[in-house]
């Protein structure tokens, strides 16, 4: 437990609640500087600093010349509202986790931060999440997804590990089968077949993965081929 040295300033009538101590600002949102702290914490993998954020840390002290009738503007008062510290810590930790997820999603593909994306499979009752940064090729991703969704196979990716988009007939064979193919939502919001771009580009642009039946993915193919042709 941390002990605080509070700056108690008492201008005006004492005893009327003119304390203006600040404690952990208990809101769901964090200021930018705190977000930066979170990012740094992730990179250094420092467990203790994330706990620090949960402690009642004195962020700044505010002076308050308070009339007992009017409440001070937005000053945080210790122990108010009367929510138990235990509960406050749990909620702060939850908002930490949510912020962390937002931060990592925002930095996916940049720097050394992780790149979590949600993976859904048609027919499966739940979602998974994968960190694309853990893999270096489509084959590795395919293996991992296969383990996760064990009845799923990604088909033959060929020697380069990419769907051979240039070979229309091969592609159509794959898409006509009842096998599952992975699709993803890219930065533009379009749904594409996985494998149409080089791996690194894929990691940077992939926002979400969806594993669908080959027959359902047919609609994606022409677009995918068109985009691929434009890129190549």
């Amino acid at each position: 437990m941390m002990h605080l040295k509070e700056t108690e300033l008492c201008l005006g009538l004492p005893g009327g609640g003119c304390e203006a101590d600040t404690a952990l600002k208990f809101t769901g949102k964090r200021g930018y500087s705190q977000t930066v702290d979170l990012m740094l914490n992730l990179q250094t993998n420092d467990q203790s600093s994330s706990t620090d954020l949960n402690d009642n840390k004195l962020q700044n002290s505010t002076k308050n010349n308070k009339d007992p009738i009017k409440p001070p503007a937005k000053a945080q008062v210790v122990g108010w509202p009367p929510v138990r510290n235990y509960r406050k810590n749990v909620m702060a930790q939850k908002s930490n986790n949510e912020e962390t997820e937002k931060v990592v999603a925002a930095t996916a593909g940049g720097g050394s931060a992780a790149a979590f994306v949600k993976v859904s499979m048609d027919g499966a009752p739940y979602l998974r999440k994968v960190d694309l940064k853990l893999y270096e090729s489509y084959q590795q991703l395919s293996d991992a997804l296969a383990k996760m969704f064990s009845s799923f196979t990604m088909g033959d990716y060929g020697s380069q590990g990419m769907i051979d988009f240039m070979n229309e007939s091969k592609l159509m064979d794959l898409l006509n089968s009842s096998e599952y193919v992975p699709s993803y939502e890219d930065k533009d919001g379009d749904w594409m077949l996985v494998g149409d771009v080089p791996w690194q580009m894929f990691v940077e642009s992939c926002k979400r993965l969806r594993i669908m039946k080959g027959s359902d993915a047919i609609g994606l193919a022409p677009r995918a081929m068109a985009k691929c042709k434009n890129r190549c």
Partner: protein
Amino acid sequence: MSEDVGTSTCKPKTSVTGEYSVTNPDQVLENVLENVLIFLTSRRDRNAVSLVSKSWHRAEAHTRSDLFIGNCYSVAPIRVTGRFKRIRSVWLKGKPRFADFSLMPADWGAHFTPWAHAMAGAYRALEKICLKRMTVTNDDLGIIARSFLNFKEIVLVCCDGFGARGIGVIASECRNLRVLELNEDEVLDEEFDWISCFPMEGTSNLESLCFDCVESSVNFDALERLVARSPLLKKLRLNRHVSIGQLYRLALRAPQLTDLGTGSFSLPEVIGQQQDENLELDYGHAFAACRSIICLSGFRDLAPEYLPAIYPVCANLTSLNLSYANIDAQQLKAVIRHCHKLRVFWTLDSICDEGLQAVADTCKDLRELRVFPIDASENAEGPVSEVGLLAISLGCRKLESILYFCQQMTNAAVIAMSKNCPDLVVFRLCIIGRYRPDRFTGEPMDEGFGAIVKNCKKLTRLAVSGLLTDRAFSYIGQYGNLVRTLSVAFAADGDTGLKYVLEGCTNLQKLEIRDSPFGDSGLLSGLHHFYNMRFVWLSSCRVTKQGCLEVARRLPKLVVEVFRRDEEEGGERGDFVNTLYMYRSLDGPRADAPQFVKIL
């Protein structure tokens, strides 16, 4: 006169010849009494019995098996073990409630150690220990584990000072352990696999295992094996490191559960934690198999898409705690419309007034409602308001206990609740915006709280907030004669408010006040009553050291503690005392007071 042998009442003054003479008639009486008193369980009744005569006092002391001590400093351990010889269960409470809100310095006290030592020597047959807001060390837990051969139950609520090692000792040494419940404790983060300390062979007697407040992850394999070997396990509350997949496996092993804390209720975030995860997991199926679940809690990191899994058990639920799940009205509605039997409901205010309306529509049997805030800052608008309160009052007529956090409130809604819910025993309304008046009329909240004390004839616990004048306290003093616990913050005009309360509330036991302009004159108006109370807490009020000294002088058996929250010595800010905490003690001031606490 003839004597009925069966009753064996003795009349020592009789001189009829032929009657057996009894050398110690009192002894016979006591034996009889003891046989009767065994059946007396209510501690209030027992306290009354013990006051009849010395003989009755002794008989009662011999037969009391459940000990309740509401303030651990009100009596020394040795006095307790001296009087009661045959205790089987102990319920001990330490710090006052405001300690939960960081208003008390960390090392203030409430140490369990002296009690552990005293009881270890005196109560060999002790089976059950419940502690609330006490500091318990790993060594203390070790003493418990080794001293009481028949130890069965330990319940720790809002305690601190111990860690996984201490829990491990209890798990490994207490062979008859049935109940291990850790409830909102601050458990030290020791890297220690306490779950594996339970004996791993043979059937376990475990009936209840609650570790939702333990922050470190547990050895899941050991946990699963333990659950599989515990056919009597009824209550299981997991911590947030248990994923939904793991919960699924546990639920399948323990379909006899009645009380389940679900842990995170989501997936672990990184693959690799569960390589063998079965694709076809049907969580609803697992819940459907647990036909006996009536109490559900947890949902620490709820992924809302999994909420439908609990539908199969909703119809039987009497208690549902979603207060760590940030869900909106729509998500709640889908769940709550099945919960017709619900009696206890805890939630976050993210469900909004609309969610509360849904509760009111379905949960006609609701007795207890708690609405906690997601955002604790003082905003102008909040997700719940007088609209939600009114809806609840109209739908849940049997309501007995409510805790409601909101930003704004109206007198009209509170008055309506006082009339619609006459069975209210506990009314705690926390208007987060300090000094907020009635949102529509701009008037103080006096009339609302006044109606509550006037109309709710069973009310024993009250917490007030918002803009209040002395008028509110005059109502409380006038009508609140059953009130035993009163919590006040940022209220009132002056001393008269405190006077009204201390003079009017004859059953007042616990008084906790912060940041209100009550001074010495108000304080001194309670001299006639302080000995009957468990404690009085006044912080950031206008009580002076002189006033406290006066109280201490006039009431020598009262322990009057004065201190500052930030542990500096002195206890005074300007002329006013920062925190005053006082209570009656049979054994004088405590020996373990830290330096920053002054006892007057």
